[in-house]
């Protein structure tokens, strides 16, 4: 499954390289060096149309052996943080985090991204925006870049200029592959026919998923820190129409939780966002 992942990353890196080669005169600002890599602010469309939501992307290209972190970084690290400087009348949404990878060593399990990753951030322009030749987008990014041997803090100030026009904006061919790749790596909403239950046991959460077919492979990435023991093996029992996954509770989990939220990957190219209320064991009810 790893090899498959690497191929898709390689593919997007190649596509990106090709796009860079093909682009000459560029409205995109180009990539900014960061610690052990580069970072670039990219736009999916060639211009902004008033009132029409559009996507920007933070594209990270990392040297081999270095990684950045998911929104829940796992046992160590910290996700990138961005502060926007936006044109008047534009508001930023939250980062859409692609499905992370496990970054593991025998004692530490982190969640993040190696090689290349694009974090999509949706933007909403006001309907009242007037056409302009060019408006500036700025992003101050703070991040932690780590290898197995060391961690280094990074900072970057990114900028991008885009015109505002009243016509519907065409997508930018130079970034089309990048955004398509980034969307493919986002976890999907949970399918409506799935039934997931999570039992709250003394030392573990037991997730039982009925997804309509037998499943032999599943990995859960918790969206919230300190709920499950990241390094503990996730014991999977294959069921006729799904699977059961036992997740050991974290030693840092001091209060009962109400819901289990996270990303469930069933194979390298399929990941789903789940958010399931917990079913308390009957015997332990009454204590809150």
């Amino acid at each position, binding site marked *: 499954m790893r090899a498959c992942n690497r191929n898709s990353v390689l593919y997007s890196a190649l596509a990106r390289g090709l796009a860079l080669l093909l682009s000459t005169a560029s409205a995109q600002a180009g990539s900014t060096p960061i610690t052990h890599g580069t970072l670039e602010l990219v736009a999916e469309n060639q211009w902004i149309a008033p009132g029409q939501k559009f996507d920007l992307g933070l594209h990270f290209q990392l040297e081999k052996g270095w990684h950045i972190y998911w929104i829940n970084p796992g*046992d160590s690290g*910290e996700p990138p943080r961005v502060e926007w400087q936006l044109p008047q009348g534009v508001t930023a949404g939250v980062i859409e985090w692609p499905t992370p990878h496990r970054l593991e*060593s*025998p004692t530490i399990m982190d969640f993040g991204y190696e090689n290349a990753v694009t974090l999509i951030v949706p933007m909403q322009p006001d309907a009242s925006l007037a056409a302009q030749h060019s408006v500036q987008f700025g992003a101050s990014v703070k991040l932690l870049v*780590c290898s*197995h*041997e060391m*961690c280094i803090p990074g900072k970057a100030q990114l900028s991008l200029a885009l015109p505002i026009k009243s016509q519907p904006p065409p997508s930018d061919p130079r970034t089309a592959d990048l955004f398509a790749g980034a969307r493919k790596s986002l976890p999907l909403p949970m399918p409506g026919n799935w039934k997931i239950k999570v039992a709250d046991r003394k030392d573990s959460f037991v997730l039982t998923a009925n997804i309509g077919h037998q499943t032999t492979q599943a990995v859960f990435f918790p969206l919230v820190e*300190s709920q499950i023991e990241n390094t503990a093996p996730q014991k999977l029992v294959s069921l006729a129409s799904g699977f059961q996954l036992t997740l050991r509770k974290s030693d*840092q989990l001091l209060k009962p939780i109400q819901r289990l939220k996270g990303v469930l990957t069933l194979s390298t190219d399929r990941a789903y966002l789940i958010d399931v209320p917990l079913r308390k064991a009957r015997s332990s009810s009454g204590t809150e």
Partner: protein
Amino acid sequence: MKRSTLNVMLVALLLCMASLTSAAKVGEAAPDFTATASNGKAVHLADYRGKYVVLEWHNNGCPYVGKHYKSGNMQRLQKQWTSQGVIWFTILSSAPGNQGYVTASEENDYLAKMQAAPTAALLDPSGQIGHLYDAKTSPQMIVINPQGVVIYSGAIDDKPTTDLDGVPGATNYVNRALEQAMAGKPVETPATRPYGCSVKYGD
């Protein structure tokens, strides 16, 4: 005869298994260790039974550790608590070649330059102590009570960033644990996620 031999073997096996699998957990006995300090002295944890002991995982290149040393916060804590009889061990579990690995004399220079004041800095390049306590990050902090029981394990405070301005106004979990335990109260927050850089073990 045979049976007693078997019992001895069983006990030995169980002890062996315990020492292999027991990472320090809050509420459980702090695993004992012997280490060499940067000042050349041997340190045996069990010798400090009867005192509170703080373990601080250190990596001088880690930006989260840097935050607490550049701001003077760690040195302040070390002075504040050692002056009240608390034993404070800074532990260096980075493997040779990895960030944070230093020789004894380099560590002594660092301690002098930073005006750090732990009871001792313990050199753990094999990661033995780190693994014994399942230390995941620098700066992970562990507090052991006079009975030798782990009463806190986790982050130094509630601001998991590398920004220096995150130090003032942070809730310091080590202070809380020591203050509450010394007042005879249970530690309100005995375990947190120990933020920081992963400990740079050499696997």
